């Protein structure tokens, strides 16, 4: 029997040491992961160069040469691919933000309905939630788009709301504002009103904390933000002209239009995500110990204040983290826009630009980077909010 060399001994000893072993395992794992990615990247580069392609982003400044129906910034077929990308990004953000707002409102209503003591209300919410979240969101999108396009009348037979608003299968037409030169004064008053409201809320809270005296804060602030600018607006002789849509030829001309593709995508994403948010809200409320409510009631606080001051602030702590992931899902699901031809980031730079220029690698990298940034922004925003409402330990 030979004696093991000291060298092996040291290695063996190192392996049996828990700390060292975990370091070794981690180094090996990291090396494996790194070499795996190095292999993939190398593979892509080699295969691209085999068919004579490089990775080059200069195509972004070439003419896009295609038109986009919904563009919130100036865009035409002579604009660059980069501008097409921005148009797509704005469309993605628009539907994501609008979707998050509507999904949150509906979700909170559904969550409260689920806890209602009224049998019918509770069952309606239950059936709705189970139906929505058990059918893929793509089907909701296709169904809604099909319904809007097939069941609404064509432009000539539009539903007419006072010759100003029109609803048909090309979308919802409405007047668009054209701001005259004096309008900036009204805008100034809105900003001033907002600043006043911010100051006044703090001031009122301070007064209440020190003297117990309360002001009708909401009413006064509302007057500052809305009433004052309105008075100024009419005093200046209404410096907005409305461009009212009118049927000319095939379609309505003038005004703004909310297209069926946007409506279908927005509603489908909101209705779908609202079902999940409803369950999260219910869980958040149920998680608050009933003793809290009883304790608050024992102090003689009114029911609405019990909700506002005791239940909701504590429930939010349970609700916010899963809510964040629902927001992320909604933002990412908006890429299903492709199925109905809503021109989002995937359809513009990741679709038509990709196809017309043949720059698959570059376009996909851009789209992935943009989604990553959007998701990280949502997460960090929600984390910031989560930190703010967290239980302050004294």
């Amino acid at each position, binding site marked *: 029997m030979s004696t093991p060399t000291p060298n092996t001994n040291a290695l063996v000893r190192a392996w049996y040491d828990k700390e060292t072993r975990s370091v070794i395992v981690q180094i090996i794992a990291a090396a494996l992961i790194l070499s795996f990615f190095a*292999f993939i990247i190398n593979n892509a580069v080699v295969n691209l160069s085999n*068919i*004579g392609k490089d990775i080059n982003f200069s195509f972004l400044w070439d003419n896009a040469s*295609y038109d986009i129906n919904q563009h919130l910034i100036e865009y035409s077929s002579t604009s660059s691919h980069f501008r097409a990308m921005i148009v797509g990004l704005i469309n993605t953000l628009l539907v994501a933000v609008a979707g998050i707002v509507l999904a949150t409102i509906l979700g909170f209503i559904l969550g409260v309905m689920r806890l209602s003591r009224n049998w019918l209300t509770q069952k309606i919410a239950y059936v709705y939630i189970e139906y929505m979240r058990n059918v893929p969101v793509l089907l909701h999108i296709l169904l809604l788009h*099909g319904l809007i396009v097939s069941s609404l009348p064509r432009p000539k037979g539009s539903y007419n709301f006072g010759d100003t608003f029109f609803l048909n*299968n*090309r979308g919802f037409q409405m007047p668009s504002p054209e701001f005259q030169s004096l309008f900036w004064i009204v805008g100034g008053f809105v900003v001033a009103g907002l600043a006043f409201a911010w100051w006044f809320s703090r001031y009122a809270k301070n007064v209440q904390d020190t003297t117990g005296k309360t002001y009708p804060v909401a009413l006064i602030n509302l007057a500052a933000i809305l009433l004052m600018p309105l008075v100024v607006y009419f005093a200046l002789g209404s410096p907005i002209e409305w461009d009212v849509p009118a049927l000319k030829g095939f379609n309505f001309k003038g005004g703004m239009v909310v297209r069926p593709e946007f409506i279908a995508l927005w509603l489908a994403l909101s209705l779908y995500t609202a079902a999940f948010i409803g369950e999260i809200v219910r869980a958040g409320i149920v998680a608050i110990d009933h003793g809290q409510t009883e304790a608050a009631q024992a102090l003689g606080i009114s029911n609405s204040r019990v909700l506002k001051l005791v239940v909701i602030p504590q429930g939010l702590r349970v609700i916010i983290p899963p809510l964040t992931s629902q927001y992320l899902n909604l933002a990412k699901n908006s890429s299903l826009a492709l199925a109905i*031809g809503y021109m989002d980031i995937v359809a513009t730079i990741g679709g038509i630009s990709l196809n017309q220029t043949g720059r698959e690698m570059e376009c996909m990298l851009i789209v992935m980077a943009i989604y990553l940034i959007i998701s990280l922004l949502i997460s960090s925003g929600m984390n910031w909010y989560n930190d703010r409402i967290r239980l302050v330990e004294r």
Partner: protein
Amino acid sequence: MKLINKVLTGMALTAMTATAAQASTLEDVRAAGELKCVVTTGLAGFAAPDANGRWEGFDADFCRAVAAAVLGDGDKVKFVPSTGKTRFTMLNSGEGDILFRNTTETLSRDVDLKLSFLPVNFYDGQGFMVPASLGVNSALDLDGASVCIQTGTTTELNLADYFRANGMSYEPVPIETNEEGFTNYVAGRCDVYTTDASGLASTRAKFDDPTQHVVLPEIISKEPLGGAVRHGDDQWHDIGKWVVNALINAEEMGVNQKNAMNLAANAPGNNPGINRLVGTEGSMGAMLGLDAKWAARAIAQGGNYGEIYERNVGPNTPLEIGRGLNNLWNNGGVLYAAPIR
């Protein structure tokens, strides 16, 4: 440890397949025993599965002709359906060996997308279809219309150019497939459907009453449609190119589906052109890396160019597309295939 072994083997295998893909396309096709042909997801008359699931149509017949020439059996084709957007990626990534998908040849596709185009087998142009009830007679009356348009196509760019050049506005309604375009057009989401005139004829033929829809007289672009292969494999490009040329030459020389194999089996006749085509004279097949009867088999598979045209898209089919430009050069068209010699 088992898991790590599996992972390592997996990685090694991936590495091997990644390097092994460099053999010539002809060898790959022969080794696989089938030709992977990229076609549309379904465009009646060009490539669409029939009631029994068999792909039929103009493009499908060209796939079969190539398979017959290369593999000796026109049914050894695996049809790979693709949208306007996915077609080139599928070809370039090796999911398909050859592409016949009513694809327009353009400079940027040829050069920047790294494709090699085969000879044009269908001369087309972009047109507009509108419901007859709209009473529109010219594409110049389309100001303000909503237009259904397949994304990722040259038609999308032509459309933008045409409306800009004529100072007209329009609302593009982007769609992915011909089927989706049809649905949106029928539902009235768009007033106009635009694509190649052949595609319009194909779509119009699907209506219960095709007379309710008119194809406007304006043809706003040149759309030379042809097959394509990947850049960089000249031998494979040559094979595709000469199969197409052989089918066109066959029509010119009167070699057809019925007599091709007989001509190839019998002693050489007195027409040297036909002899070279069917392989009884010269060594054309060997130059391509194929056997002598490659062209005879390709012709016997689905007929010569004229037979393929008449059977799938010609005046006696629901598509009712006259020969027009797609006639032989000595018959008033522009089909002028290079000679096989």
